[in-house]
């Protein structure tokens, strides 16, 4: 009888785990939604001062620390 009770729980365990996993997936995906826009805006601003060819933004996660790393590639000198 107890093994039956135990089995009964695995679908609800799955539901709980999925609900949390998907919530955090959706949050981190939300962060990425604006990246294209951010890239374009940074490109515009930096362009006012130096000649840039591209901007690349990556979200990096290490342990508890999240960081945005922004690479700005300059055009070759004359």
């Amino acid at each position, binding site marked *: 009888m107890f093994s039956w009770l135990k089995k009964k729980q*695995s679908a609800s365990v799955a539901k709980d785990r999925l609900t949390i996993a998907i919530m955090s*997936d959706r949050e981190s995906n939300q962060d990425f939604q604006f990246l294209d826009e951010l890239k374009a805006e940074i490109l515009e601003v930096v362009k006012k001062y130096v000649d840039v060819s591209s901007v690349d933004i990556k979200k990096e996660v290490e342990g508890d620390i999240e960081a945005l790393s922004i690479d700005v590639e300059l055009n070759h000198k004359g």
Partner: protein
Amino acid sequence: MGIVIAVISGKGGVGKTTATANVGLGIALNNKKCIVVDFDIGQRNLDMILGLENRVVYDMVQVMDGEASVKQAVIKSKIDENLNFLAASQTKDKSTLTSEKVKKLIDELKDNYDYVILDSPAGIESGFEHTIEYADKAIVIVNPEVSSIRDADRAIGILDAKSQKVKDGEEVEKYLIVNRISADMVQSGEMLCSEDILDILNIPLLGKVSEDRGVIDASNQGKPIILDNKSDAGQAYARIAGRICGENIPLKDVESVSTGMFKKLAGIFK
């Protein structure tokens, strides 16, 4: 003007291609002109499921590249003349797809068919993005299993971010098919039920398909299971196709053991 429906899953191996074949044939059986297109470039499979592998001459990449016309490349099914098929390329790479080429092909298909069904590749790479780009609607296939559901949510997220319709400020309607349901396991609490999956994914349910041994038998023969109107999965796909074509068919409870019990009882009296 035809309706473009992308069939997506996120995770592979959940029965997406089988679903595409059965949905496509089911729509054709409802007397609508339908074309199914295999967008899984490099991993051509839909032709086998539809039993058309020996008739493929030109593929969709050749059509997009202007090496063949739609007319030359499209194969008319002998099962139902309303069902048409366009094969994926087996040799080319997914990177061959561009938005322009995909749009041109889909626009041409929309002009000629009532329903354009696209079998998307698994994963969320560029091949997937091109499949959903010009879709009006999407059918999401999941198994009642955590990795499938999580990957489906991710695929839905990308669909909602990258499709042209969404960029135009509209919404791509999404519908869920829960595939490979085992009533016994749902009843014993070992398998997520459809309602739980709907709570998590939050899109409307198009149909529930039971685990059915006949599906493999059907693909062995290249005759989609919908043709076996005695099979559980075949009946489920027939209901699904009817719903897509606008019929009001109530959802059937395939998750209660009672149906299984009834069957077993019926089996005794056979």
